[in-house]
């Protein structure tokens, strides 16, 4: 027998078995309807769970991307002050993050796919449950227990199949989400521990930042010193450099050398 036929027979017999509980066939209708409402609630919760996981991954991607931008900035700054070693370290960490981000984006796409599938499953089930409710009332109002049997069988079989389908879709989504949640938890822990240089620890507590801060405060001091020397001690460059090659400085030199002599006398 073909796969299609085997699967159909097995699936249907299982779905029907799950719903076949009550003695009066009309009670079966109410029992089944209750199960349907329960399942609808579960599916809605399932959609919300997957959405929560998706948002969590989104947040992690954002955090890692911020960290990436920060490392890029640090690399540029380090190169600007001639520290290629620091720049290299920052870029190395940045490329490590790129891999993590790539993985997370793949997960995000999968979660989004599951969320869409479950949302559609929920809508299909909802439409069928609504039909079932109408049919159930008709059957209970119109038929005796004996007469109702066939009608009930038809309605139950259709809804049972849908419930089996939705139940399976939920199970698959849960399995996939559970695996991803474990990985997301690991990344949250890494972010919290600062091992990924979480930018939420404001003040840039990581070692590259510290070294760059030290460097930039040193170079700020030097720049300030140079500026002050330029203003207050114009003779100093000449005294230090002895015989400058630059034409500009040569032009100024006679004045700077002459002026102190004039002032002293």
């Amino acid at each position, binding site marked *: 027998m*073909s*796969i*299609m*036929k*085997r*699967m*159909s027979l*097995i*699936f*249907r017999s*299982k*779905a029907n*078995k*799950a*719903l076949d509980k009550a003695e009066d066939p009309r009670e079966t209708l109410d029992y089944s309807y209750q*199960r*349907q409402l329960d*399942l609808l609630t579960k599916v809605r919760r399932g959609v919300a769970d997957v959405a929560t996981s998706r948002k969590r991954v989104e947040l992690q991607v954002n955090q890692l991307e911020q960290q990436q931008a920060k490392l890029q900035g640090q690399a540029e700054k380090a190169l600007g002050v001639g520290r290629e070693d620091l720049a290299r370290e920052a870029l190395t960490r940045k490329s490590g993050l790129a891999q993590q981000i790539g993985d997370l984006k793949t997960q995000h796409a999968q979660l989004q796919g599951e969320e869409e*599938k479950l949302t*559609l*499953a929920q*809508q*299909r089930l909802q*439409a*069928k449950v*609504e*039909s*079932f409710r109408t*049919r159930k009332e008709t059957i209970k109002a119109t038929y005796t227990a004996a007469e109702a049997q066939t009608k009930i069988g*038809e*309605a139950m*079989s*259709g*809804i*049972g*199949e849908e*419930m*089996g*389908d*939705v*139940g*399976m*879709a*939920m*199970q*698959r989504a849960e399995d996939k989400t559970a695996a991803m949640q474990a990985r997301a938890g690991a990344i949250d822990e890494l972010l919290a521990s600062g091992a990924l240089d979480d930018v939420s620890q404001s003040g840039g507590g990581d070692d590259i930042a510290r070294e760059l801060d030290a460097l930039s405060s040193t170079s700020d001091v030097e720049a300030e010193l140079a500026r002050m020397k330029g203003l207050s001690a114009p003779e100093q460059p000449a005294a230090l450099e002895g015989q400058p090659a630059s034409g500009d400085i040569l032009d100024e030199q006679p004045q700077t050398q002459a002026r102190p002599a004039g002032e002293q006398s």
Partner: protein
Amino acid sequence: MIVRILGEGQYDVADSSLDELNRLDAEVEAAVDADDDVAFTPALAALLDGVRAVGTAHDVDSLDSSDLILPPADATIAEVRELLTDEGLIPG
């Protein structure tokens, strides 16, 4: 006839299309029997695409049961095997 793709919904398929779908189904079955993952994924995709191509969406609020039920598009061979046994299915 009505064909359900699990996780996707029901399609109305004309009986005249059945020969073609049976041919595609035979390829899926061969891949499952041979435990051939490489052949299975494209074979299943071709079968489901075939159903989607020749079928039209069945009324979403009908309570009709399907004549044929097919595995979800991202199913693995192992999952198809599970669907063919008495274990592993959650009937709601």
